[in-house]
C-alpha cells in the first residue's frame, strides 16, 4: 500500500522508507515558528529546562504580529521578551514592527517555507504552508520550546481525506468560499487528526493565494494539515523566493485514504459562515436581513495582494453604507506597499475604509477593531467563535474579501453581484 503526500514528507524527515497512519515517529524540522503570544511561553519552557542553545538559528522564525504594534504594556513586555531572546541567540528570521507581516503570509513571501519541507509553528494556522506542498502543522508552546532546542519533534502519522477537485470557480468565488463550503460539508471536526489532501483536475485552476487560504483553514475542520500537490503554479511562486534545494513529493497512486470527497469548483457559491462555528455555511445571497456594523479584510487567511485586489475591485467607486466601519489590513509590508503603488489604498480610503499596518489584531479580538455587545462583523478571518472579535454577545460572519466588501457597501450580508 502506498503513502499519501503527507506521509511521504514525514517518512523522509523521519529517515524512514515508509510510514503508516497511526505510527509514532520522530521527524526533523526544517523550520520552527512562534509569535508574540506563543513564543514567550515557549521561552519560559526553554529556560525552565535549562537549554542554552537553539538547534539552528537560521531555522527559527519569530514574528511579532498578534498584538503588535504593541497594543498595551503587557503586549509590549511579551514582544520585548521575544526581542531579547532573538538577540541572545542571533535569530536570523526575527520580524518586528517595520519588517514584519502576519506570519503565515510573511513566511511564504520571504521564501522561508519550500515544497517538501516539514514545519511546526506555535500557531494553529501554521497549516497554511501546505499550499506550497510542505507539511506544516500547529503545535503549542511547549512543543515549540523543545523543538527550538533539538530541531525535531514527535508526530502521530495522520490518515487522510482526499478532496478531489474538479471544474473551475465562478466569478467572485475564491479559495475562501471553497474552504467554507468544504467545512460546511464535513464539519469543524470532520478531518480531526487527519490530513486534507487536495487533488484532481480542479487544482490547476486555483491560484497560489486560493490554495494558501484553503490550507490556512484546514485546522477549522480539525485537520492536522492541508496540502496541495506541487505544480507549475507552485514552482512559479517559489521561484526566486526559496533559494535552496526543495523536493516535490507526490502521493502514491495506491495511497490509502479514509474517504474521498468530490467537490466541483463550479458549484461553489459565495459563502458566509454564520456564528458561532465555521461550519455554519450559507450562501451570501441569503443574508439580506443581516445588517452589519463592521467589515474586516485581512488576516493570515485573506491578507494577500490578491485579496486586497478582490476587495478593491468591489469597493471601487462605492462607499461603505452609513454606519459601517471598514478595516483593511494588508498582511505584510510588501502587500501594503503594493496596495499603495497599485492605487488600492486610494480606493479603500475613498470608500470610507481605514488601512492598517499588518497585524492579526481584530481577528482574535486583540486590538484594531474589537466589537461591542450586539455588533456584527463580516470578516475575512478564520474563526467566528463566541467572543472571538470582542464582546461575548458580538457576532462574526466569515466570508471572502469580495463578499466582505460587498456587504460593507450594502450594510448587510451581500453577494458582490448585488452592488
Amino acid at each position, binding site marked *: 500500500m502506498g503513502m499519501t503526500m503527507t506521509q511521504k514528507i514525514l517518512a523522509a524527515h523521519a529517515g524512514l522508507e515508509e510510514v503508516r497512519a497511526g505510527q509514532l515517529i520522530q521527524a526533523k524540522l526544517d523550520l520552527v515558528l512562534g509569535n508574540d*503570544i*506563543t513564543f*514567550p*511561553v515557549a521561552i*519560559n*519552557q526553554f529556560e*525552565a*529546562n*535549562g537549554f542554552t542553545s537553539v538547534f539552528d538559528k537560521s531555522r527559527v522564525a519569530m514574528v511579532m504580529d*498578534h*498584538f503588535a504594534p504593541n*497594543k*498595551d504594556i*503587557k*503586549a509590549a*513586555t*511579551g514582544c520585548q521578551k521575544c526581542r531579547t531572546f532573538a538577540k541572545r541567540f542571533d535569530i536570523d528570521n526575527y520580524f518586528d514592527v517595520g519588517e514584519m507581516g502576519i506570519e503565515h503570509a510573511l513566511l511564504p513571501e520571504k521564501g522561508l517555507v519550500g515544497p517538501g519541507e516539514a514545519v511546526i509553528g*506555535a*500557531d*494553529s494556522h*501554521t497549516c497554511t504552508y501546505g499550499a506550497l506542498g510542505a507539511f506544516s502543522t*500547529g*503545535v*503549542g*508552546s*511547549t*512543543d515549540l*520550546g*523543545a523543538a527550538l532546542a533539538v530541531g525535531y519533534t514527535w508526530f502521530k502519522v495522520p490518515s487522510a481525506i482526499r478532496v478531489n477537485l474538479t471544474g473551475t470557480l465562478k466569478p467572485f468565488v475564491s479559495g475562501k468560499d471553497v474552504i467554507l463550503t468544504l467545512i460546511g460539508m464535513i464539519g*469543524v*471536526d470532520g478531518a*480531526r*487528526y487527519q490530513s486534507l489532501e487536495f487533488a484532481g483536475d480542479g487544482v490547476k485552476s486555483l491560484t497560489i493565494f486560493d490554495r494558501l487560504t484553503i490550507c490556512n483553514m484546514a*485546522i477549522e475542520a*480539525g485537520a*492536522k494539515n492541508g496540502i496541495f500537490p506541487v505544480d507549475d503554479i507552485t514552482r512559479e511562486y517559489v521561484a526566486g523566493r526559496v533559494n535552496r534545494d526543495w523536493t516535490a513529493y507526490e502521493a502514491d497512486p495506491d495511497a490509502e485514504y479514509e474517504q474521498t470527497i468530490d467537490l466541483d469548483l463550479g458549484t461553489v457559491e459565495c459563502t458566509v459562515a454564520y456564528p458561532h*462555528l465555521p461550519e455554519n455555511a450559507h450562501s451570501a445571497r441569503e443574508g439580506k436581513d443581516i445588517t452589519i456594523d463592521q467589515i474586516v479584510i485581512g488576516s493570515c487567511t485573506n491578507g494577500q495582494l490578491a485579496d486586497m485586489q478582490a476587495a478593491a475591485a468591489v469597493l471601487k467607486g462605492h462607499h461603505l453604507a452609513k454606519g459601517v466601519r471598514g478595516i483593511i489590513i494588508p498582511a505584510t509590508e510588501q502587500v501594503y506597499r503594493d496596495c499603495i503603488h497599485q492605487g488600492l489604498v486610494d480606493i479603500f480610503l475613498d470608500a470610507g475604509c481605514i488601512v492598517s499596518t499588518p497585524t492579526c489584531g481584530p481577528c*482574535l*479580538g*486583540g486590538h484594531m477593531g*474589537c466589537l461591542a455587545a450586539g455588533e456584527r462583523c463580516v470578516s475575512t478571518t478564520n*474563526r467566528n*467563535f*463566541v*467572543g*472571538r472579535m470582542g464582546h*461575548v454577545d458580538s457576532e462574526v460572519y466569515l466570508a471572502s474579501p469580495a463578499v466582505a466588501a460587498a456587504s460593507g457597501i450594502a450594510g448587510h450580508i451581500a453577494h458582490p453581484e448585488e452592488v
Partner: protein
Amino acid sequence: MDAHGIAHKFGDHVDTDVIIPARYLATQDEQELAAHCMEDIDADFRKKSKDGDIMVAGANFGCGSSREHAPIAIKASGVSCVIAANFARIFYRNAINIGLPILECPDASAGIDDGDEVTVDYDTGVITNVTKGQTYQAEPFPAFIKDMIQKGGLMASLKGTEE
C-alpha cells in the same frame, strides 16, 4: 495519581477562545489566566469550581487556536482532569505536555451530568460516577505519559534525561 471531584459539564466544540479569550493572552501568568478560565461560556465557572473538580465535555474539546494558555488556565484553575468524548489534536498534545490529565471517553461524556461526583483511576482508566453509580472505561495512559503528567509536563520529564 487519581482524580476525585465534582463534574462541570460542557457541550461539543468547546474552543480555546472560550477557554481563555484572546484579550487575556498578553500575560503568561498562570493565576491571571486561571482567573478568566471559561468566562465567555460560563461566567460563574471560577466561582463554582473547587480544587480537584473535573471538567466533562462533548466532542472536539479544545478546538481552534493552539494557545497553550488554554490548558494552562484550566490546570491553574484547579481542575484535576478533563474528560471528553474526544479532543482537538493541538489541545490534546498541549494538555499532556503541560501535565494536565485528559481522557477520551464517549460513555463518560454522555453519562456524566453537571454536578455529579466523579472519580478517575488513571492506572486502570476506570471513571466512576459516584452520584449515579455508573462506571465507564477510558483507555489508561501509557507509562511514559503517566510519567510526564506526574512530573508536571514534557519539559520536566525530560530533565535529567539528557546525556
